[in-house]
């Protein structure tokens, strides 16, 4: 039964990756990568029980932390870039 969840998560990860490749704006890509990270956490938790190795849960926890910090850092970067661009546009007009 763990196989069903694993396969569903893997398909969702593939769809998220496709959205990250297609995504028209950079925010679509960030959304897709964030979703991919969450699905990785779920996949690691399921695989820990599928293979009977509970130490995978530590990896899942660490991955959740890294994913959150990474997404926030990337968003802060793009946010400051958007602010800078709008300030430049305002100065030009």
């Amino acid at each position, binding site marked *: *039964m*763990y196989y*069903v*969840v694993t*396969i*569903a*998560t893997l*398909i*969702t*990860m593939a*769809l*998220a990756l*496709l*959205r990250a490749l297609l995504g028209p*704006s950079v*925010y*679509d890509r*960030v*959304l*897709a990568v*964030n*979703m991919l990270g*969450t*699905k990785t*956490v*779920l996949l690691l*938790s*399921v695989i*820990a*029980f599928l293979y009977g190795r*509970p130490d995978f*849960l*530590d990896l*899942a*926890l660490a991955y*959740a*932390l890294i994913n*959150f910090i990474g*997404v*926030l850092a990337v*968003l*802060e970067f*793009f*946010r400051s870039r*958007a*602010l800078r661009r*709008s300030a430049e546009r305002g100065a030009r007009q």
Partner: protein
Amino acid sequence: MTALLDTLSWVLLSLGGLSVLIGGIGALRMPDLYTRMHAASVTDSLGAILVLVGIMLQAGLSLATIKLIVILMFLLLTSPTSSNALASAALLAGTRPFAEAAQDAEEPK
């Protein structure tokens, strides 16, 4: 009792897998960024809750359950935060919601 717990956890795991899949399809097929975020948040909250609680019922009372609870609490705290940061960054950059853009296309000012 064990059979009941097993059945319950399989039901939760199946529903979790289904909602994860639906959210993935939605994130691929929805028309603009905000509707995609709406679809993706289904997998982040409902999918994570269902799958992790389903695994917890399989694990029983052990250290693994505590780790799973920590992972679940962390996911439930961080995914709305990152969704909020994403939406505010996109709004600041000038991405407009799909319905509003479609309305403007219909009635030019």
